[in-house]
């Protein structure tokens, strides 16, 4: 199976892709990705406000993969990765694009999509309130996530979460999240 995200990277290869990763997302991989992207942003003298936003969003995206990915479908080429995910970090005109991809079991799609839709129809002020509500009322789950990652990403970027589910087989879909972190003034 050819993943769209790989095609995307191939298409964009000459177009400022800072990092492409595919495989198991463990703690060491997260460290390595964060260091690589941070060093790159320092090297090109990125302004610190944008740098911090990108770093924050990257932490949440990676830890979302770490805490929440479903196991890979049977027959998928990579059976060794317990937490299989993909990540692209790309420099674009006004900022950075962070794209993640991971398998989601069919049973979990609806809940995830509902969550994203709720965030996307909320105003910036509503997202702030939602963040505070979850912070104050929801316990850390058994998986270790706080349920705040996507809300935080939407809050810090001020942008809608672009996403897609591509069916892999009758049990699994591949979920893409496309996040733009840009320099425009926050509302």
């Amino acid at each position, binding site marked *: 199976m050819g993943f769209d995200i790989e095609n995307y990277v191939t298409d964009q290869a000459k177009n400022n892709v800072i990092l492409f990763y595919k495989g198991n997302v463990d*703690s060491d991989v*997260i*460290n390595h990705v*964060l*260091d690589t992207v941070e060093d790159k942003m320092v090297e090109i003298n990125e302004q*610190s*406000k944008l740098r*911090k*936003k990108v*770093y*924050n969003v990257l*932490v*949440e995206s990676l*830890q979302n993969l*770490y*805490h929440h990915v479903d196991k890979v479908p049977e027959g998928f080429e990579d059976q060794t990765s317990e937490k299989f995910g993909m990540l692209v970090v790309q420099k674009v005109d006004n900022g950075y694009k962070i794209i993640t991809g991971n398998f989601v079991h069919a049973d979990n799609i609806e809940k995830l999509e509902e969550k994203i839709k709720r965030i996307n129809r909320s105003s910036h002020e509503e997202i*702030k309130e939602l*963040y*505070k509500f979850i*912070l*104050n009322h929801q*316990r*850390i789950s058994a998986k*270790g*996530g*706080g349920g*705040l*990652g996507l*809300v*935080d990403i939407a809050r*810090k970027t001020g942008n809608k979460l672009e996403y897609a589910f591509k069916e892999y087989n009758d049990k699994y879909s591949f979920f893409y999240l496309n996040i733009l972190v840009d320099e425009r003034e*926050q509302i």
Partner: protein
Amino acid sequence: MEPIIIEGTPKTPTVKFDATEGVFEIKGRSIPENSVEFYKPLVDWLDSYKETPLTKTVVNIRLEYFNTSSSKCILDVFKKLEAIHKAKNEVEVNWYYEEDDEDMLEAGEDYESIIRVPFKMIEIVE
């Protein structure tokens, strides 16, 4: 009480909790995958401290980054401080943020609105 002194790492903050001075500090980056593991000893320590706190406790939070998983643990730390404050002891939180970091300022304001302890927002000018 034995103080807590933890050296910072790229993913966890420097921590200094000193019960004899009543000055507590959390500084640096707090982005571990498992934040509960890191913060539980701090919360437990505060639980003991709140039995016999000093009349004044000062808390300095000077974070460069923290992840959402830490944000819940930091709230747990503040809830202990709130209990100390509620028992008629003085508690002051100094929340530091870098001058261009509105997100960090907003994060401090979130806590200020949830926790009934006086917060001071302090801008770090380079």
